[in-house]
């Protein structure tokens, strides 16, 4: 069935030798499939690249576009987990900019860490590696927070004692998190990110309904419900894309390797 869809989308003759593999690879990253590629989609993608040049990254990567060249969005980092130097580049600066605008807007409005939206903007729109997205977002929060802090300061939203106690906890957490981040793979970071998104999404939904007096569940129960929701979603996702995808398919290719 998936083969039939391939023929509908593109005539097989187009996917021959000499066609830029980046261009073909990019065709699939338009949808949300980047998050956890279905095995069938991944197989299709690997088949197309098998006919062209060999591409080392396993997830759809985009070719550098004009924004990459104008803003020199090239970089590299040493991946502790892979023990190699990873080269990367950012694309679609304008889309990233648009998402960042909403990230800032939502963050100012709701006070939630806009990190979730920023990471989406960088990972999906700008096609940066997950580790680069998370660390950059972490750094950006410092600058954006500093922008808002003076107004918060004079509006009196900062209680020195509260801030002091919180700051120490956050800093310890951030330092240990960074130590762990460099040791794990991008794929593992993405799993953690998914779990946090699932939890935050459910928690905020319940909180919003609670504040509007639509539901009257105690706050502690809200957290428990969100935790249960996250556990269910994550185990379903893990079963679907972690366990099933890891089984070798007919051609003997192991799926779900991911963009480590």
């Amino acid at each position, binding site marked *: 069935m998936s083969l039939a869809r391939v023929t509908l989308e593109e005539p097989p003759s187009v996917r021959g030798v000499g066609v830029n593999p980046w261009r073909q690879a990019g065709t699939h990253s338009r949808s949300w499939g980047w998050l956890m590629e279905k095995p069938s989609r991944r197989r299709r993608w690997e088949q197309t690249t098998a006919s062209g040049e060999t591409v080392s990254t396993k997830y759809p990567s985009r070719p550098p576009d004009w924004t990459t060249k104008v803003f020199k969005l090239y970089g590299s980092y040493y991946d502790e987990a892979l023990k190699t130097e990873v080269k990367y580049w950012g694309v679609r600066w304008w889309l990233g900019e648009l998402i960042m605008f909403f990230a800032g807007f939502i963050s100012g409005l709701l006070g939630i860490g806009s990190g979730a939206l920023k990471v989406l903007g960088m990972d999906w729109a700008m096609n940066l590696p997950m580790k680069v997205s998370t660390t950059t977002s972490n750094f950006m929060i410092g*600058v954006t927070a500093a922008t808002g802090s003076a107004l918060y300061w004079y509006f009196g939203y*900062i209680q020195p004692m509260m*801030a002091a106690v919180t700051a120490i906890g956050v800093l310890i957490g951030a330092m240990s998190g960074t130590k762990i981040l460099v040791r794990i793979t991008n794929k593992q970071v993405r799993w953690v990110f998914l779990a946090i998104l699932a939890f935050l999404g459910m928690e905020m939904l319940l909180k919003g309904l609670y504040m509007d007096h639509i539901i009257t569940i105690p706050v502690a129960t809200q957290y428990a419900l969100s935790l249960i929701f996250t556990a269910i979603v994550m185990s379903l996702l893990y079963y679907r894309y972690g366990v099933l995808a890891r089984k070798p398919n007919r051609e003997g290719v192991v799926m779900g390797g991911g963009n480590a």
Partner: protein
Amino acid sequence: MPRWDMDYIIGLTLRYGVIISIALILIGIVLFHVKGEALGCSENLVMSPTSPINTTVIPPGYALSRLPYLDPLSFIILGLMVLIATPVLRVALGVASFAMERDWLYVLITTVVFINLMLAIFILPSIMHLHANYQLLRILCPQR
């Protein structure tokens, strides 16, 4: 031995900014537990979750002037200021770093970010006539 290039200096700035700020905040908390009062306010008043002692009643200048008297809240506020100033300093160093690389596009972008920061931190509060209310602090916590 690491190379003393701009990236390394920026890394050091960020790291030591955070370490200094944690140290100041920790000193403040320890002093608070030793003294049991801060800026003339009692322990219960400061520690309460609904405490009226927030940054609207503590003028930054006044808080810093109490540093030589080892006032706990002065240390905490200085620590928070260092924490806020760290990324600002990093942006300023970023301008220098890009200027050294003669990357004028990024000098421009980083300068815009820096101007934004300065606007938000210094200009905007004074335009909006936002001042900390020292009288309210004295009413809440009469000086002994």
